[in-house]
């Protein structure tokens, strides 16, 4: 009896140990990746300087000019556009699935959303190229090529939709039944209950969903390259209407690396690794914000 017990005990310890090792391995791998990129990036930071690198407006490898600001602004704007379009739709979809849709509709829509998450990025790019870019080109504004922030934001909005919808739906579903019943028992309607109690109670989970969506948006590469135009410019409105900034071409941090890395050498190559460092830090910041939001929930 006693021998059996200790056998189970040791088996448990071994499994625990393996899991711990796994976790450590993951941390070590992330650390090593970060370190290797940092080592490759270091000459760029040293020769260009942190501030000129981050805030420089010109990126011209031929002239040894490496300012990352256009790409930082490009990444932020396209993410902003994607969030503005994708989050309301994602949260509405989540609300619909969790609160309104009859089971058979859920059975159709949920796999469809999962499918959306499984489509390769390059296919989204093709869709953008074939459908969105020609569509956006119809907007009669001088300088509008169809390629640019608007097309990219729409593509990206669709791409973050599964993340936002899935996690928001979980958050909405996990709102305690007591809140729901408390509201209905006061004579509130189903919709008043959703807006007045359910969504506010699910707020931190929805915030986490949005932040994870932002992380996904910042990291997206292939589809962006295909539709955003990739010009190294700080996007500006094309005419007096400030919204036309979204018709401007742009380049993302990810796109900057992917477009140039195949032929870059020397300082140019270092600067691309430094771009990677900036991206890495940005995404780590965003993800830890998501973790904070999730933690506050429990």
């Amino acid at each position, binding site marked *: 009896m006693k021998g059996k017990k200790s056998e189970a005990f040791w088996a448990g310890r071994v499994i625990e140990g393996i899991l711990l090792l796994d976790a450590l391995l993951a941390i070590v791998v992330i650390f090593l990746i970060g370190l290797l990129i940092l080592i490759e990036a270091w000459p760029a930071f040293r020769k260009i300087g942190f501030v000129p690198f981050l805030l420089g407006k010109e990126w011209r490898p031929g002239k040894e000019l490496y300012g990352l600001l256009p790409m930082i602004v490009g990444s932020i704007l396209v993410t902003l556009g994607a969030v503005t379009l994708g989050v309301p739709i994602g949260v509405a979809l989540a609300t619909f699935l969790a609160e309104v849709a009859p089971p058979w509709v859920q059975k159709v829509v949920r796999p469809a959303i999962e499918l959306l998450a499984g489509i390769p990025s390059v296919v989204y790019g093709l869709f953008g190229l074939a459908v969105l870019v020609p569509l956006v080109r119809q907007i009669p504004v001088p300088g509008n090529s169809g390629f640019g922030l608007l097309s990219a934001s729409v593509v990206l909005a669709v791409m973050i939709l599964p993340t936002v919808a899935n996690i928001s739906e979980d958050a909405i579903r996990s709102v*305690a039944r007591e809140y729901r019943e408390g*509201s209905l028992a006061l*004579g*509130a309607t189903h919709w008043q209950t959703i807006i007045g109690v359910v969504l506010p109670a699910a707020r931190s989970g929805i915030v986490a969903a949005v932040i994870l969506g932002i992380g996904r948006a910042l990291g997206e590469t292939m589809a962006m390259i295909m539709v955003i135009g990739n010009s190294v410019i700080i996007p500006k409105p094309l005419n007096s209407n400030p919204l036309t900034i979204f018709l401007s071409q742009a380049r993302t941090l990810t796109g900057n690396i992917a477009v140039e890395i195949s032929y870059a050498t020397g300082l140019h190559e270092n600067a691309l690794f430094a771009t990677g460092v900036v991206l890495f830090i940005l995404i780590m910041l965003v993800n830890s914000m998501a973790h904070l939001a999730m933690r506050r929930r429990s």
Partner: protein
Amino acid sequence: MGQIKLEMVHYSLYYGNFCALRDISIQIPARQVTAIIGPSGCGKSSFLRTFNRMNDLISNARVEGRVFLDGQDIWEMDVVELRRRVGMVFQKPNPFPKSIFDNVAYGPRAHGLRDRSRLEEIVEQSLRRAALWDEVKDDLNKSALTLSGGQQQRLCIARALAVEPEVILMDEPASALDPIATLRIEALIRELRENYTIVIVTHNMQQAARVSDYTAFFFTDESRTGMLIEYGETKQIFTSPRDRRTEDYITGRFG
């Protein structure tokens, strides 16, 4: 018995194929406290949740028979209107994760009241009636979740009172509270009785004897189907029950 507020006529409730309540007929008097007692699982909550149609939320629930509020069939009424007139306090205090003020103002706002000064009046009046005003009047903007369990439950009572219901259903409202908080709730129930019809589920026999005017005893056999065994004035039920099972249950718990 005086005026009848709620009435059930040959009422049965099914969850799918399972019959949770069979053939209940009962008349509940206005402005009195009616206690529902019985062992756990005998359908007390299901019975209570019938009157504000909370069971309608359960997809496989099905009913037979009729239920009336002031002589009007509750399934022919607008459910929002019914729930405004028949409020509910739950077993576990369930204030919303909002401020104390917003909790109490929630119902009136849901019914379209926007006027701030009128809302303030209602909030104060409801909190006073729930004997909570003095404790929270300086912290109306604090989260309701910072209150103690007993205060939270009184807040839930205030929240129910704010929509000016005629009936208040309470499902073991003190079961999650300590003895002192429980006594406060019981005193409150006695006061509210002046103006409201109260139906309270309790597993605590002494509590039923202390707060109620009428008592209904529910019981279940091997089929697990809940039945109304005996109903009458509380004094009579506790001193000279007519049914053997009522007597066994009451004395068993007391002994």
